[in-house]
């Protein structure tokens, strides 16, 4: 999966599409399997990136890999009360309005109002937080200032980001990353979470979940949620019923900015453990190394030997994700230092450079039209903390290449930049004119078929042959054979 952040317009269509399909039931009311947050900001749940308190992901001393939250030795003492467990206050209390009051209020001098009521207790509440409460509030004292990624910045950089005339923000849409080394799976005492072999989707067997909730602190992205009504955890299922019938997940399909790309990759699962032991700044490269070249005859041969179907190899070869990730090296994993090897990659945003007004004239502070990435409004260190485990080289590479593509396209379409200069910019960014055109096409003009290259799993047929699909339902993470009533 790739999300192209420069294209996200922060419309939340993706979140609403997901909510309408999967989480409009009691107990899931506060869940947003897909959410969009404003960065800098504290996100949802509040400060989810603060692993000192939530204890998500893995830690390593170079030799061993351990869960930060519940290693096998720590689970026993914490079994009756896990202190890292988030509560509803960390998300928000879901509410609705008493709309009937608008119609039933007795006649009087005042307009009737619909008061907010909690969807948990049904009682009146004062709404103090919501799933996107920090939307567009960059620079705010309450939200942006408490962004965990700001911690590494020096005073000057922090002040710069908060200065009113320099404010900048971008949107960060998030879903479950369907990680290669999922800490949610590793933490589940009941073995209810699992990764599907065929497509790597991480699912949660509702019949086996025993409400230990170990997955919730363990997932550093806070993408498993506790259904307070059924007492089971739930998570994004990547719309597998859609994928199995050749359609993109609802959030991908509905994305207005067309920022989302999905396809399959071939990777070497045997390397996961060893590579997860590397230091933070080597992890981006390590994960790229794990992803194999689907055109390499040796890889194809090995894949076939392992029972990978030709159709799946073919879609891997056409994968837009592979291009962004390996060929162009534009896409980066979010918080790779959590060591779960997330399989959702982000093309980092190329923030606008400073401009100022003199009288009626808007001036760029730098002479060049597109400026210099070092002078971008969000300090490169800030983005580095989010996307490259602090490895700024990898980040600069991705930003510089995006910039070079813009310069090149300006030369092609407008022509006020000389060919030499455009070519020099490309060369400096390790890019060719052909690649630049292709990056441009896949970023700006991509159709459904370019963005969603979905492998022909035909999985439902396989399941029908093996077992009763009705029985199968409840173990696939969504749906159950009984009404979710408790006794």
């Amino acid at each position, binding site marked *: 999966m790739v999300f192209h952040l420069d294209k996200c317009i922060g419309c939340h269509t993706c979140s609403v599409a997901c909510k309408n399909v999967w989480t409009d039931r009691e107990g899931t009311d506060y869940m947003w399997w897909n959410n969009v947050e404003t960065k800098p900001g504290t996100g949802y749940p509040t400060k989810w990136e603060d692993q000192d308190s939530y204890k998500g992901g893995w830690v390593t001393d170079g030799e061993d890999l351990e869960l930060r939250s519940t290693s*096998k030795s720590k*689970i026993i003492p914490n079994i*009756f*009360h*896990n*202190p890292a*467990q*988030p*509560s*509803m*206050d960390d998300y928000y209390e879901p509410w609705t309005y008493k709309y009937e009051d608008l119609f039933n209020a007795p006649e009087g001098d005042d307009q009737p109002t619909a008061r907010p009521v909690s969807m*948990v*207790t049904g*009682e009146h509440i004062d709404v103090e937080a919501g799933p996107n409460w920090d939307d567009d509030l960059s620079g705010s004292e309450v939200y942006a200032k408490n962004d965990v990624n700001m911690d590494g910045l020096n005073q000057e950089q922090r002040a710069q980001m908060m200065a009113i005339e320099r404010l900048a923000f971008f949107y960060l849409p998030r879903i479950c990353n369907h990680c290669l*080394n*999922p800490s949610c*799976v*590793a933490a*589940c*005492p*009941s*073995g209810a*979470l*699992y*990764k*599907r*072999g*065929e497509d790597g989707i991480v699912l949660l067997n*509702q*019949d*086996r*979940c*025993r*409400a*230990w*909730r170990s997955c919730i602190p363990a997932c550093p992205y806070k993408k498993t949620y*506790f259904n*307070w*009504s*059924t*007492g*089971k955890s739930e998570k994004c299922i990547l719309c597998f019923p859609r994928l199995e019938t050749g359609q993109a997940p609802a959030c991908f399909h509905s994305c207005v900015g067309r920022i989302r790309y999905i396809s399959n990759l071939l990777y070497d699962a045997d390397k996961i453990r060893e590579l997860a032991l590397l230091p933070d700044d080597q992890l981006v490269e390590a994960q790229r190394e794990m992803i194999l070249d689907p055109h390499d005859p040796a890889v194809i041969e090995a894949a*076939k030997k*392992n*029972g*990978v*179907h*030709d159709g799946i190899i073919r879609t891997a070869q056409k994968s837009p994700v592979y291009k962004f990730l390996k060929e162009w090296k534009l896409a980066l994993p979010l918080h790779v230092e959590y060591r779960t090897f997330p399989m959702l990659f982000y093309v980092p945003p190329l923030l606008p450079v400073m401009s100022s007004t003199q009288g009626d004239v808007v001036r760029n502070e730098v002479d060049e039209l597109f400026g210099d990435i070092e002078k971008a409004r969000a300090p490169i260190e800030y983005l580095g903390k989010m996307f490259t485990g602090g490895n700024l080289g990898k980040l600069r590479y991705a930003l510089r290449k995006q910039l070079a593509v813009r310069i090149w396209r300006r030369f092609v379409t407008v022509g006020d930049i000389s060919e030499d200069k455009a070519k020099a910019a490309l060369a400096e960014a390790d890019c060719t004119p052909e690649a630049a055109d292709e990056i441009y096409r896949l970023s700006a003009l991509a159709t459904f078929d370019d963005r969603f290259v979905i492998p022909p799993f035909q*999985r439902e047929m*396989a*399941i029908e042959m*093996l077992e009763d699909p009705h029985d199968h339902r*409840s173990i696939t993470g969504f749906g*159950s*054979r*009984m009404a*979710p*009533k*408790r*006794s």
Partner: protein
Amino acid sequence: MNDYFWLGTLPYISVFVFLLVTIRRYRIRAFSYSSLSSQFLENQQHFWGSVPFHYGILVVLGGHILGFLCPKAILSWNVAPLRLLVLEVTGLAFAVLTLVGLANIMIRRLRFPKARRVTTAGDWFIYCGLLVQVVTGIAIAVHYGWGSSWYSTSLTPWLWSLVKFSPDISYIAPMPLLVKVHIVNAFLILLVFPFTRLVHILVVPNPYLWRKTQVVIWNWDRKKIRKSAD
């Protein structure tokens, strides 16, 4: 009170229902096999109920089971008065811990509207049952001391007579009412056990300690599919 029914028949009914319903529920409604946690809705007081209650009851229940399985060991431990005293005091301390935890759990579930929202009638039934059990237990320990010894000499033989299908209630028929209430209530709890949240005790996740870290499930045999497609 018809002693023979309560002490000679009820245990069989309870165990029978327990076995039948727990197995049936696991097979048909595995989904419901857990305890509905409310920590997510109320995380301030949760610790003070759940933790003392669980540790308390684990030790107390463990003591009862030990007395049932190896009464001789308990009796020989108790020959020295000091050791008997240590055992009694430990048991009592953990019983009080259980009571404190249980009281906190009940107060918390009453006091916080969000926790109340996920508390069912079945939960209240079981809380009251447990409360009676813990209170009578503590009262027995205080009034009729040295229970670890007389439990092993009187109750254990009766329990074994039940196991051997020749119930002999003469061991316990002369016991004080308080003790009988404690016993009968225990079997009533066992009777409702499979219908309530208590089933979560049966699904402690021991395999976690030795399973592989990651779980990957294939829904088809890859190699076979590959062959048929070739």
